């Protein structure tokens, strides 16, 4: 007699995935002892040989941070973080004198990225994608710089931009996410180590996709990267970001800040595939991913956030748009998959200031195991936002009866001509859907991956081609496993 595992049990089996990026690389590092005070900030600044104004900026942030309290409103639970037990700076030893070319980079580092599927040799790299590889606190290498330089595009580590383009950094750093914006942003502002800097000149369409690949390697290290993208009038850029970390029993903190400035008629498309280590099946270990991402869109500009979040033990992240200029457009497309004991509280803020601004929010949450996934969003129409529009759709998919899916949308409207639509639904992979697929000859694994991918379709189609494939694979990997 045939024994059928129930649809749900099958799905749960499939969700037991292995974390493929969980290896640790044996790379010697200079790591600052744990602890945070003004000297730590000074040390980091000195390591980067920063000018005085940069140090002052950091210290201002640090002093503000000391007065601030950790936010508690998110629908996540984790033990109190001891900020004095974290090391705030770690750099591969071989990076002491930043290599001039890839040939000088520690081969172990290059191997690490190749293992992660990120070839750093330009000839082997994905055609049309320039990569900035950030390892723990330091940018290792940035590919295709010359080619970009010809187009006038600046793509370099932010530590380098502080020296080479101080006028741009001074003008825009903190202009979207001020130092005191929130607890984690303040912390980042004080101790950020590296990250990517992008500048697209007026009227330039960036000739290739730009990409940063973040890797946490060292134990007990926080990663605090800072990304700043400036798109001048009429320019266009698509930027991708990927993240992984080794499997460890301890939780590690990642508190990044991303600022986007889209000047008149510019377009910035920012895509993330976040696959930080999520912790093990029992909820041990994993990354605390507390990230502030925000963009400001001037007249006729467009900012589009697309994120596929499958990693991290706890995610606290709300990529947002300030639609300042008339006719500016903000978009947020998100897939958040949580499994085992993962918790995600993620969403967006769309702040409509200008006339005829419009925003679209498509958020898909998938909860499995004992995880909890929350959508938290704010749509605010200010009195000046004549004719503003928002459309929001939040869908949750539950897999198994131990998980939770939550929706907390805040809608604030102060303009009578604004139109806001918000819809949310919650459903599960139903036994009927599984049965239909299997009756048509598909195995359970294929059936679940097809149903889950179908659920995420609206978001995946927003990703650049290379990432859409990666995201699909990531979900597929998440769904790999034994079928009864």
């Amino acid at each position: 007699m045939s024994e059928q595992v129930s649809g749900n049990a099958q799905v749960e089996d499939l969700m037991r995935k292995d974390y493929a990026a969980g290896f640790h690389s044996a790379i010697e590092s200079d790591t600052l002892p744990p602890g945070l005070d003004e000297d730590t900030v000074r040390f980091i600044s000195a390591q980067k040989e920063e000018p005085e104004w940069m140090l002052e900026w950091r210290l201002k942030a640090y002093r503000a941070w000391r007065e601030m309290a950790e936010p508690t409103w998110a629908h996540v639970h984790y033990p109190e973080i001891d900020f004095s037990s974290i090391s705030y700076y770690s750099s591969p030893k071989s990076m002491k004198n930043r290599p001039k070319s890839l040939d000088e980079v520690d081969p172990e580092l290059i191997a690490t990225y190749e293992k992660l599927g990120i070839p750093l040799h330009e000839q082997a790299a994905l055609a049309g994608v320039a990569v900035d590889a950030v390892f723990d606190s330091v940018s290792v290498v940035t590919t295709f710089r010359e080619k970009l330089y010809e187009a006038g595009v600046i793509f370099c580590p932010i530590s380098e931009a502080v020296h080479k383009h101080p006028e741009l950094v001074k003008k825009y750093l903190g202009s979207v996410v001020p130092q005191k914006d929130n607890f984690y942003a303040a912390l980042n502002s004080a101790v950020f180590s590296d990250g990517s800097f992008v500048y697209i000149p007026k009227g330039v369409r960036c000739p290739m996709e730009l990409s940063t690949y973040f890797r946490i390697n060292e134990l007990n290290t926080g990663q605090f990267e800072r990304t700043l993208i400036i798109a001048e009038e009429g320019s266009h850029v698509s930027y991708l970001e990927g993240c992984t970390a080794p499997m460890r029993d301890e939780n590690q903190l990642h508190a990044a800040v991303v600022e986007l400035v889209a000047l008149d008629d510019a377009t910035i498309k920012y895509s993330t595939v976040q696959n930080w280590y999520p912790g093990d099946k029992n909820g041990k270990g994993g990354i605390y991913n507390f990230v502030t991402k925000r963009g400001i869109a001037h007249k006729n500009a467009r900012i589009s956030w697309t994120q596929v979040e499958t990693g991290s033990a706890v995610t606290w992240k709300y990529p947002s748009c300030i639609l300042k200029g008339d006719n500016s457009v903000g978009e947020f497309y998100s897939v958040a998959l949580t499994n085992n004991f993962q918790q995600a509280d993620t969403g967006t803020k769309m702040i409509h200031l200008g006339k005829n601004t419009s925003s679209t929010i498509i958020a898909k949450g998938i909860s499995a195991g004992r995880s909890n996934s929350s959508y938290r969003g704010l749509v605010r129409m200010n009195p000046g936002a004549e004719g503003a529009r928002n459309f929001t759709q939040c869908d949750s998919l539950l897999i198994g009866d131990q998980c939770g899916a939550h929706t907390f949308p805040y809608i604030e409207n102060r303009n009578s001509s604004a139109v806001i639509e918000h819809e949310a639904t919650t459903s599960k992979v139903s036994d009927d859907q599984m049965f239909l697929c299997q009756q048509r000859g598909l195995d359970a694994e294929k059936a679940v991956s097809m149903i889950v991918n179908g659920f995420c379709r609206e978001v995946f189609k927003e990703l650049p081609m290379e990432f859409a494939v990666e995201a699909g694979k990531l979900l597929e990997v998440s769904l790999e496993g034994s079928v009864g």
Partner: protein
Amino acid sequence: MLEINKLNAQVEDKQILHDLSLNIKAGEVHAIMGPNGSGKSTLGNVLTGRDGYEVLSGDITFNGKNLLDMGIEERAREGMFLAFQYPVEIPGVSNMEFLKAAVDARRKHQGLEELSSFDFMKLARDTSKNVSLDPSFLKRGVNEGFSGGEKKRNEIMQMMLLEPSLCILDETDSGLDIDALQVVASGVNAMRNSERSFIVVTHYQRLLDFIVPDYVHVLAGGKIVKSGDKELARELEAKGYGWLEGEVA
């Protein structure tokens, strides 16, 4: 093709099928009729291996193999097809993608090569026209937002594409107006041949005017209480199921 021998089956601890036996040869069309709650739909679900339908005893042989040893998708790949009474919606999964995956799985099982995307698309478009379904339905999510009639025609289209050896039509006629019914019936009739068998489960005789069965069985109380040819269906239409009640007991 299909031999059911003394099948006893239950759903949620309630026995629905009692010592049911049925023998279907290649090329035959068997109609199964019966009042509501007689176990008609249970039979289709047991044959396809749906969760929650538990076989207590008896055996079923399909194309010479023990059906009960096979999982849902194995049975499907062996050529068993159930046209659902209430086809479920799968948002976001396009009909085309779904159909290609199913056809690929079946062809792989048969040792055939996968169809190229181009060939498959052409095939699917042609087939959709055969069931009067606009090819644009192929791009939409599986059954997503389809009307009742469109869902049923989508089922028949899948049947045509998968070319099963045994087709089980579970109350495919319910909720269909006469035009849609004719489309469904002509699709089924076009597929009839000496290799392919059908089990047509229905409450109404009307469908059997269009799909003429070789045999008609009356299912009541979980067992076949009467078998005959297509005339039996007319008799049921005229007299209702009441006159058979004596035979149920």
